[in-house]
């Protein structure tokens, strides 16, 4: 907002801060973040050699980049990454769909929720990744075990979030819908489903980060594809740079999935008032 524009009588809506200082603050945080990254990379490049830490313990940034090139051309890094990304998304989709359906079903039946809640709690606490070796015993060295671990790990946060939200749907809204003679299905579709959407989206965001863990553990424990496999392979060869690079790519997969979900959430939940900065 320039002085000239203000003098010209342009109306400034309440709560909107002048543009310039806003973007300055934004650039400020961006610059600071980039500064920290640069500092970290520099330290990583020069500190380990200065302290005589061997390359197979902590490779430098340039070692990692050299290794990255080698992995790309000789270890089929791209196809391993695609495989991991595929199973992450697939496991995430199946697990969260099952979790959401289960959450809604239990949310509609107080009886079954009470009956099942101790088992749900127990399963929720049990470390899901520890099931991986069992799944390999049952299904062999194929894609099934990692998919199952992912589905299992994704299922609970989604289900619990949905169930929690179903319990707290505004009774008066439901009564209003009843007074308007909406059917049970109509109440679900027009009141309960949209009311629980923010919680569902929050559950999906948590689940997206867990999905990467599920697939990685599945690949670590058995199989010969995916970034998890590259980690255990690189670890076996004392190739720390390879492990570092695989971790980097796993993180990227997680970030992409999370960002897509956050964008979708912002679109869908546009009607929630945004907090002022």
């Amino acid at each position, binding site marked *: 907002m320039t002085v000239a524009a203000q003098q010209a009588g342009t109306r400034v809506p309440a709560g909107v801060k002048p543009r310039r200082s806003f973007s300055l603050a934004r650039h400020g945080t961006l610059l600071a973040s980039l500064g920290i990254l640069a500092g970290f990379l520099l330290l990583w490049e020069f500190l380990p050699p200065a302290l005589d830490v061997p390359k197979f313990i902590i490779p430098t940034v340039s070692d990692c980049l050299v290794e990255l090139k080698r992995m790309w051309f000789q270890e089929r890094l791209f196809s391993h990454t695609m495989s991991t990304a595929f199973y992450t998304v697939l496991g995430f989709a199946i697990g969260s769909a099952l979790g959401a359906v289960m959450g809604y079903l239990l949310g509609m039946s107080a009886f079954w929720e009470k009956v099942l809640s101790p088992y749900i709690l127990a399963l929720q606490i049990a470390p899901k990744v520890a099931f991986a070796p069992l799944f390999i015993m049952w299904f062999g060295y194929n894609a099934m075990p990692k998919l199952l671990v992912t589905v299992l790990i994704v299922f609970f946060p989604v289900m619990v979030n949905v169930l929690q939200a179903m319990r707290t749907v505004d009774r008066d809204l439901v009564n209003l819908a009843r007074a308007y003679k909406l059917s049970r299905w109509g109440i679900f579709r027009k009141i309960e489903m949209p009311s629980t*959407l923010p919680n569902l989206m929050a559950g999906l965001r948590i689940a997206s980060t867990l999905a990467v863990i599920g697939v990685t553990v599945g690949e670590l424990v058995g199989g010969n594809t995916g970034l998890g496999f590259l980690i255990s392979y690189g670890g076996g060869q004392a190739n720390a740079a390879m492990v570092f690079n695989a971790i980097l790519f796993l993180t990227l997969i997680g970030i992409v999935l999370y960002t897509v979900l956050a964008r979708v959430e912002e679109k869908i939940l546009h009607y929630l008032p945004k907090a002022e900065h």
Partner: protein
Amino acid sequence: MALEYRGVSKDFVTNPDNPLTAVRDINFRVEEGEFVSIVGPSGCGKSTILSMTAGLYQPTRGEVFVSDERVVGPNAHVGFMLQKDLLLPWRSIVSNIEFGLEARGVGKAARRERAMKELRHCHLDGFENHFPYQLSGGMRQRAALARTLAIDPEIILLDEPFSALDAQTKLLLQNSFGGTIAAAGKTTLLITHDLAEAVLMSDRILVLSERPGTIVAEIRIDLPHRDQPLKRRVLPEVSRYAAELFGHLKLEEKAL
């Protein structure tokens, strides 16, 4: 007549040994087009009466009739509004107003037309595509009234619709509701804590006792301008009616 209570009592059984009687032996009638208010101490069962009229739950004893039909469940004759506007935050204002019509098999175009008409009656022109969070509390209550009127109910039930608003907005909204309801010719039951509000808006006021609530007084307000509470407000008789209500509620004794 539009609404009749015949010997209605309501018990809530949360603790089987000691059921709680919310209201006891309520008898009253509301004629068509009449505006009746119910006042009474907190917890005396006012909202319970509203819920039973809307058919959300059944009386323990006695019967409720709306338009000569016994109320056995939610029905198309009544529309209700609470202190909370109960607008769906994920819907635009116009689509909120349409909400009640959707379960009634009204076609899409007809729904939109009805909703836009009520929107204008409630002075919300230009806000149809806004979302509830973008409206003030007073505008949201007007949108809720538009939604209630859109289904063309025979009776409108209002449960303290103005009590969350500041004093000025309240006066303006009472005036706007009074006008809109009179123009639509709707039978109305208003539940309120505000004695002045009851006097300004009603044809008749029912006073409930402490819980278990029963009707202890009935006051007819013989004043003009029911459709313009702001005009009625300046009449000298208003304070006399308020004082009478004050006496029936035994507020002076309680203050001691």
